[in-house]
């Protein structure tokens, strides 16, 4: 029996010990009329050989185009050591570290992870992960609502330059708690939130969300926005790309006081694209807000002998203790992904991560240059950017993407679905994994497509 060790002798001995004749008898408390007939809809079980062949066929079926798409999921080089260590059974097959003494590996690693994320965002504390970047933003919004005691409005300013899917997820998650998400439009020429257009008297604002870089790759005036928000009693939530944090000013250093909360998608930190998940969300904040944090937090402490050790702490925030009054319902998080991210950040170090960031930036710039040398292709926004760019095309983006796909190229993301007002627009990205030759290949394919 696959994965079941019982021999016939075992079963007989166990049934005898229990005092029943058949395994079926153990289900005698289930009302008979409820008993399921069968699972005929399922296939027959197959051995590992057969399943391997089937999965290999499935995996081989899909094209593997040269990737120039970003939009929150980036193809970065992942050092081999990351997953060779992360998939070790002791990490892979452990549960949440409830028994701290038997889980010092995971706990110390998470404490190190928290330190690294706090460093990246320049905030004081980090939790041990949330599901993904989008839900991290939702939790950040909820946290801001709880944390901004002065605001009564439950009103969040949400720029349209925030990832559209993130906005959709936030909407799904916070809508039942009487929270208003008020959209802020972006500047038509810069693609960013232009501080001068912000209302002088915004009223009671609970928090302002600042994406950095924003969905279009444009850099926001984070300092000015932060100061504006704080001046009006609003908390500041930064949604940031962790790779960017190696070179771009981090939320903790925005404006006079720094942002209050930072969150984002951890995928760039050593997590494969993997068709969209699992990734992980990160969430950092000021010390002041720590009791509003959702999710696991690891703290250092001492054992009976005074030796240093690590435990889950501030559990009184969490659902298993506080139940209906918890900061969130999250229980299982994305632990293994943070393991990989911790290894990734360790292997890159501050220099390595900065080089990745700089190379992504340079590659995307070089790509934009090449593409915009083609007739009818222009940058959509004039604005400093990091690592991603929105382009205007002379033809509908979907059509162009289809034609590029025929040529083995994933040319980016069509912006027209989420931003119909932008016309034929495409979001492109070239990470450090794209070579000069790759950029040339894209440019010549696009030229071909547009001149067809």
């Amino acid at each position, binding site marked *: *029996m696959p*994965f079941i060790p019982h021999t016939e002798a075992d*079963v007989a001995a166990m*049934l005898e010990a*229990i005092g029943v004749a058949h395994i079926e008898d*153990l289900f005698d*408390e*289930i009302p008979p009329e*409820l008993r*399921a007939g069968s699972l005929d*809809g*399922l*296939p027959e*079980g197959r051995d590992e050989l057969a*399943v391997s062949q089937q*999965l290999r066929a*499935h*995996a081989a*079926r899909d094209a593997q185009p040269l*990737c120039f798409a970003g939009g929150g999921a980036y193809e970065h080089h992942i050092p081999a*050591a990351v997953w060779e260590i992360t998939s070790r*059974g002791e*990490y892979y*097959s*452990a549960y949440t*570290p409830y028994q701290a003494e*038997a*889980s010092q*590996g995971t706990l110390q*690693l998470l404490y*190190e992870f928290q*330190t690294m994320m706090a*460093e990246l965002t320049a905030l*004081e504390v*980090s939790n041990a*992960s949330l*599901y993904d970047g*989008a*839900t991290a933003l939702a939790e950040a919004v909820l946290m801001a609502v709880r944390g901004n005691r002065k605001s009564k409005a439950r009103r969040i300013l949400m720029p349209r330059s925030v990832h559209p899917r993130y906005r959709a997820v936030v909407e799904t998650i916070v809508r039942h708690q009487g929270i208003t998400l008020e959209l802020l439009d972006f500047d038509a020429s810069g693609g960013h939130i232009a501080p001068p257009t912000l209302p002088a008297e915004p009223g009671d604002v609970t928090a302002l969300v600042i994406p950095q870089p924003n969905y279009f790759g444009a850099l926001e005036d984070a300092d000015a926005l932060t100061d504006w928000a704080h001046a009006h009693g609003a908390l500041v939530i930064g949604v940031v790309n962790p790779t960017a944090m190696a070179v771009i000013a981090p939320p903790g250093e925005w404006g006079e006081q720094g942002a209050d909360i930072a969150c984002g998608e951890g995928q760039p930190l050593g997590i494969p694209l*993997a068709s*969209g998940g*699992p990734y992980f969300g990160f969430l950092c904040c000021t010390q002041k807000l720590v009791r509003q944090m959702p999710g696991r937090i*690891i703290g250092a*402490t*001492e*054992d009976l002998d005074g030796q240093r050790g690590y435990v889950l702490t501030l559990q009184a925030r969490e659902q298993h203790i506080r139940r209906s*009054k918890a900061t969130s319902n999250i*229980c*299982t998080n994305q*632990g*293994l992904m943070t393991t990989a991210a911790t*290894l990734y950040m360790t292997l*890159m*170090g*501050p*220099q390595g*991560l900065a080089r*990745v960031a700089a190379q992504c*930036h340079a590659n995307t710039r070089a790509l934009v240059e090449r593409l915009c040398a083609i007739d009818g292709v222009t940058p959509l926004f004039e604005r400093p*950017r990091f690592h991603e760019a929105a382009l205007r095309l002379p033809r509908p983006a979907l059509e162009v993407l289809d034609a590029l796909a025929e040529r083995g190229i994933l040319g980016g993301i069509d912006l027209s679905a989420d931003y119909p007002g932008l016309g034929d627009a495409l979001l492109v990205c070239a990470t450090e994994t794209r070579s000069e030759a790759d950029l040339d290949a894209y440019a010549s394919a696009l030229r071909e497509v547009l001149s067809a």
Partner: protein
Amino acid sequence: MNNEPLIFEHSRPGRVNRAQSAHFAGDLDGIPENMRRKQPPALPEVSELDAVRHYTRLSQRNFSIDTHFYPLGSCTMKYNPRACNTLASLPGFLGRHPQQREADSQGILACLWELQEMLREVTGMTAVSLTPMAGAQGEFAGVAMIRAYHDARGDHQRSEILVPDAAHGTNPATATMCGYTVREIPTDAQGDVDVEALKAAVGPNTAGIMLTNPSTLGVFERRIHEIARIVHEAGGLLYYDGANLNAILGKVKPGDMGFDVIHMNLHKTFSTPHGGGGPGAGPVGVSERLRPFLPIPVVGREDDGSYRWLDERDLPQTIGRLSAHIGNTGILLRAYIYALLLGREGMTRIADFATLNANYLMVKLREAGFDLALPERRATHEFIVTLKRQAKEPGVTAMDVAKRLLDYGFHAPTTYFPLIVPECLLIEPTETESKETLDAFVEAMAAIQAEAEKDVETLKGAPYSLPVRRLDDVKAARELDLRWQAAG
């Protein structure tokens, strides 16, 4: 010699791991000075060997299924087949960008669609969405659908969700997140929902009830039909917390019990890894009337056999998106592979042997002198031992026994959950453990009991054989130390 320093303590300024950062030529042209970072983040500066050695050594400081029996009740710590990891990590799956065209994604979509179908079959529900990223997010999706259902009918007065007092903490927390108030329903002496109390509680305010069956007490809720009738008659819906599905696979289908919506924990029942905390996956299944509200995306199959994502255009009443992409796809793949390996017979056998193991272990522990929380009941896949008696005399708590078990080479059962049983150990052996392992666990428990009778202090001081002795939780919460900081 037991100590493993923090990775930051291995760090030296200027130590660069060049194999990972050597030859880039990029600069930051175009980014204004004031937008740049001034001080680099203090990530560790170590060699690749430092990193590999440190995290290899740390890993050895964990208990895990791969190294230890791990009977953590409610968590279904069964063997995670390695093939699921290897095959889900095929380059064709790992390298795929989530925005790749549907036309170029038929392989992965086929896998996900087949998984959806298999989950429909085992749960007896009408439709499934795979997108929730863990049990709690599945719960959120479920309760949000209940809300959307009432709202769509203009039934806006329903403000309460009923939750048994034995429920997992995520249940009430979820109800709150969905804007409901929570009303607790007591449990009777037999471990069933107190039906009289339930009758008293339901009414026009009842949006629904969240039930786990088998319950978190490790017993099957026998009056489930009656409960369903009571709640349905009051206009409420039934939510099924599928965390304990392992116990009843192929035996009862939640759909047949009258549930309207259910989540599954694939990281329990479908043996995807727990990864030291996650990721998991919490697909939801619904009955016909909740189908319009399913979270998106859902995989659809066209008449020509091709697959595509269904989104708000297909499901205009959807509760919306729960993640930026499709959720924890890699976990879904692992569950799919697991389901293929087990197939129809294998699924039923899970329940058979999980139940056999739990009942055997329960009987053996009773024989060894331990008190059961519900001695009159069959165990399902798990059961509860209570140390109420021992806590009085000789003064040994569930925590003491748990910590001492670690010294004997066993992970501890779940302690102090469900909250309504004093000094409890919730024990779930799972179907993948052998009789010898269960027997060895009983021996260890008996030995600990003997130790307790001889000298309580031995237990109070446990564990002794791990990298650390018992850790001070109170100090951790009082003197918050949540990150390393360079001295000075």
